[in-house]
């Protein structure tokens, strides 16, 4: 590199400028984009003057600051190398975000009893090492734990059961009692699934995992 550097200094811009770090360039562009979006969004707000600052002034100053940092990063991307960036894993993000949105959309209508296990199992598949049986056991056990802790012990206003099903509770059953019964059932199911003997070759649940052959 020394020759190129000296050449750059001696001949100025006649030497072609080489992009040395696309990673940093992208970072800088993202900042500039955020700054631009912000400026557009607050264009309707009154910035006021220094002695009576309006709502628009801080966002505007900050957007300018951000843009300057972005430009700085863009310049840096031509000046120094940075290390390689690996591939973006889509599987992880999709399943994690899917699990979170599944929880958010099902918690109110269906309660923790449904959204808890759902979120946990969906999230579990974010890794290629997912095993359905383990996830089910974990989901059932943890949901039972959460119901007892948050719903029963701490009395938090988290919906536990689907609102429609609450009409079908047997007479005399309080909500807390229903919670405890449900938790008990969950634990029982969890234990049952955990102890269920399944042949490895025939088990459809384990197909996702590459099995080490035992011969």
């Amino acid at each position, binding site marked *: 590199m020394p020759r190129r*550097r000296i050449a750059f200094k001696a001949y100025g811009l006649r030497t072609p400028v080489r992009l040395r770090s696309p990673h940093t360039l*992208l*970072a800088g562009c*993202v*900042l500039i984009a*955020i700054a631009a979006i*912000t400026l557009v*969004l607050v264009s309707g*707000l009154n910035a006021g*003057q*220094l*002695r*009576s*600052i*309006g*709502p*628009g002034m*801080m*966002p505007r100053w*900050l957007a300018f*600051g*951000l843009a300057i*940092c972005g430009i*700085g*990063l863009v310049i*840096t991307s031509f000046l120094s190398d*940075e290390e390689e960036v*690996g591939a*973006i*894993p889509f*599987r*992880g*993000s999709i399943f*994690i*975000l899917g*699990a*979170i949105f599944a*929880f*958010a*959309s099902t*918690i*109110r209508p269906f309660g923790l009893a449904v*959204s*808890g296990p759902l*979120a*946990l199992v969906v*999230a*579990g598949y*974010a*890794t290629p*090492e997912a095993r359905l049986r383990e996830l089910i056991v974990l*989901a059932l056990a*943890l*949901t039972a734990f*959460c119901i007892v802790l*948050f719903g029963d012990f*701490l*009395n*938090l206003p*988290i919906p536990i059961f689907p609102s429609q099903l609450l009409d079908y509770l047997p007479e005399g059953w309080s909500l807390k009692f229903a919670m405890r019964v449900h938790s008990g059932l969950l634990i029982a199911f969890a234990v049952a699934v955990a102890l269920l003997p399944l042949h490895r070759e025939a088990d459809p649940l384990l197909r996702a995992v590459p099995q080490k052959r035992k011969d």
Partner: protein
Amino acid sequence: MGAFVDNLSLGFAIALSFQNLGLAFLGCLVGTLIGVLPGVGPIATIAMLLPITFGLPPVGALIMLAGIYYGAQYGGSTTAILVNIPGEATSVVTVLDGHQMARQGRAGIALGIAAIGSFFAGTVSTLLIAALGAPLATLALMFSSAEYFSLMVLGLVFATVLARGSLLRAFSMIILGILMSTVGQDLDTGEERLTFGLSFLTDGIDFAVLAMGLFGIAEIIRNLEHTERRDVVKATIGRLLPGPEDFRQSAKPILRGTIVGAVLGILPGNGAVLGPFASYTLEKKLADDPSRFGKGAIEGVAGPESANNAGAQTSFIPLLTLGIPPNAVMALMVGAMTIHGIIPGPQVITRNPDLFWGMIASMWIGNLMLLVINLPLIGIWVRLLKVPYRLMFPAILMFCCVGIYSINSLPSDVALIGFFGLIGYILIRLGFEPAPLLLGFVLGKMMEENLRRALTISRGDLTTFINPWTHPISAALLAIAVILLLLALLPSVKKGREEVFVE
């Protein structure tokens, strides 16, 4: 001196009754157990456990509340170290080196040092409060908007030192954090800013949601990239408690952290939140090998944790004497105190001396309980790390969702942690770091409010912040900020020059 001893003995006489000891123990235990759940930070923990104290007599209730408070704080640190999720602004610093230590198999040591450092800081701070409570309240009265603003600016300069990477990137993250704190309704005019018309953004972004998404979710996504690297947390747990070498390295940081935290905690306006950051900055500057920070330096846990606890205790001084809670946790405490009959304000020391001093004494007992309860529990926490990650992360995710939902009962909050998780992950891949963003966010609101107020008072005169005649404290704080910034920039300028010459 006589009054000092009298007050403390009164306090301890009350706090050491059998019932009150039991309540303190219970509070600490429950606070820690709930606080340690990932997704449930100190704020959520205290809010959840507050109703348990309602049925108790006032002194007992406050003692249990103090126990819950410390338990929640320590539980939050435990989560920060083990799972890399900061439950509160002050845990952001613990996460930096504490989690790295956990990854290196030194989780027990990190947890132990955090507990011991906190206990030492708590002891010193209790003595400070007892001795200096009243006189220090007068310091609070000298602070006006300009001083608050300059203090926040100083805090942000600390944030740049937290950055492991380039300063330019850290600086841009700070700015982005402040920008995100402007989302919501404007303070003075009520106009909506940057809310995209979404109703749940009208009140702005919740800190817990942002922290969970940026740190917790983004971290989980990042860990899933490297299937080989994932079980990095070593199976060999090693020593559970800090050894002599660790103590030797941590002794001075604990001392310095205590002083820094105690001083900053007394300052009104959430000065306590700057304690850990200032301590981290200090330790990094004083260290023989600053490059160890961010990779598991024990000083990066010992100092900030002590500062955190010292600040948490001394921040009761402006709280009890001025009646202004500096942050959400303190606001909850004020609410609880009011319910039980202590109305914070200048007369609280004279009007309810037994409640006041009983509470101060019970704070120290709470610290002691924490040590007693948690050191044995460290073994259990550390063993949790052995659970294979493919099972851990869905569990963490579920707790996060439930925890976040329990704060405001808003599904949009839960969806937002997913959104911020994605943003956080993208930022990390682009080479940015979330820690400075979080600090910018925390300080942003206060900064803007005080900036506007100071400039309104000075009628648009920007020099009011550095004018040594009208605002000497503000000028001093800004001067320190500039000096620190220069100190941070100089090494990189020098290094840059060297690189050019080397090539």
